[in-house]
């Protein structure tokens, strides 16, 4: 490990906190030129400043609503305007709305699908178009969840989130099949409980997970490094916590 991401242009969504921020920090520390996208500009600025303070290249901050098609097109356009290139896309932005199927609102359901699935699709589409124009390949890493896999425990109240994460796996496999001729690898990580704000808000307070955002970031990094995972596409890398 070490220098394989140096100079690579990486767009990370949901980069204001949690797994996205940890991924951005890890990539920037290796010399990647990072673009931070999420809805909350203040969080993005804080992440960017913290990265710049380490001496790494200051990330480009692009506040983006991942439910907004035009904003996502703009995100990739501004990446190309700033850095002139694109190599990596980490579709980490995700939203969680709990609620039993009998009770959850259509609005909440749609909101989860809009960011977790449609947002991943829109960003991937924009990235693939960019890769084609740029004339080289790259890598996309999506973020699913153990709750998006068959055979894992399913918890009441998680249907919208889990369903969206199943869709992320399906999208990953389809993208991998379509994009291989472009030289683009597409994989996803499927973490369980990770110590993030999203988890703390979704889970009972007594539940503590030892898996850190940095643990997930390192796995994402592996899937972005052609030298390490160059033969891997369409894969789901599960990350189990102590829970």
């Amino acid at each position, binding site marked *: 490990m070490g220098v394989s991401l140096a100079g690579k242009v990486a767009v990370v969504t949901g980069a204001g906190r949690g797994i996205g921020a940890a991924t951005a920090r890890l990539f920037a520390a290796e010399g990647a030129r990072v673009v931070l996208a999420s809805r909350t500009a203040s969080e993005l600025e804080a992440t960017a400043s913290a990265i710049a303070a380490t001496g790494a290249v200051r990330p480009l901050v692009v506040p983006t609503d991942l439910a907004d098609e035009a904003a996502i097109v703009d995100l990739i356009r501004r990446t190309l305007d700033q850095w002139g290139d694109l190599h990596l896309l980490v579709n980490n932005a995700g939203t969680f709305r709990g609620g039993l199927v009998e009770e959850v609102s259509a609005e909440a359901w749609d909101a989860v699908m809009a960011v977790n699935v449609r947002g991943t699709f829109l960003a991937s589409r924009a990235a693939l178009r960019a890769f084609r124009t740029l004339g080289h390949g790259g890598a996309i890493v999506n973020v699913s969840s153990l709750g998006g896999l068959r055979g894992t425990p399913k918890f009441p109240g998680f249907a919208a989130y889990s369903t969206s994460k199943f869709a992320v796996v399906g999208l990953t496999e389809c993208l991998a099949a379509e994009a291989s001729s472009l030289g683009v690898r597409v994989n996803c990580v499927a973490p369980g409980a990770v110590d993030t704000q999203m988890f703390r808000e979704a889970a009972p307070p007594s539940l503590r997970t030892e898996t850190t955002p940095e643990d997930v970031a390192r796995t994402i990094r592996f899937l972005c490094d052609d030298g390490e995972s*160059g033969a891997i596409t369409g894969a789901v890398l599960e990350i189990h916590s102590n829970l």
Partner: protein
Amino acid sequence: MAFRDRTVLVTGAAGNLGRAVARAFAARGAALVLLDQRREALTTVFGAEDDRCLFAPADLLDPASTRAAVEAAIRRFGRVDVLANLAGGFRMGEAVHETTDDTWRFLFDVNVRTLLNAVQAVVPHMIARGGGKVVNVGAFSAQRGLAAMGAYCAAKSAVIRLTEAMAAELREKGINVNCVLPTTLDTPENRAAMPDADPGRWVALDDLAQAIVFLASPAAHAVHGAALPVTGLG
């Protein structure tokens, strides 16, 4: 040199994948214990032993022989940090209802029993040390049963399920257990057997070795029970 202080035990070391995996770990500083049936095969592939490379001929179908090899590794290096269960084999062609006893026994012996004997010999040491990594080799094709490959899919499925079971058992003991699921490997034997196929669509041995090294590395310390497809881009 992520494996500078690590000892890696490779089964099936004299095989095509074994050579690539041993090389990959050695390049990252690991001490190697190379386990295969015949010392001559190890000598042919690896030349001579040295202070960082121990040959450990053993019959992986014989628990006592396997244990003796692991004990030799412990005596030399004091530890086994990584167990790479590469020993395995492939046969296809028989429908399930025509599968011979010989085929069934062969596939389960070389793919599953070798794994069981190896982990029985190695895992207690890892538990005592408080950590370790086990990487197994499943098969991409074993994720669903396939015609004329029922027995093979069943044997490699057993590897995947045992990987998951071991991960659940050993996670809290600091031991990561994962497996890779390769498609067809680019080996001289496969090229000879399938001369009309395009080896560019197969998986290069070095690429599979990289995935195995990753699963054994500190970067994967949060990864448990994973079955990682390695399919190449073809």
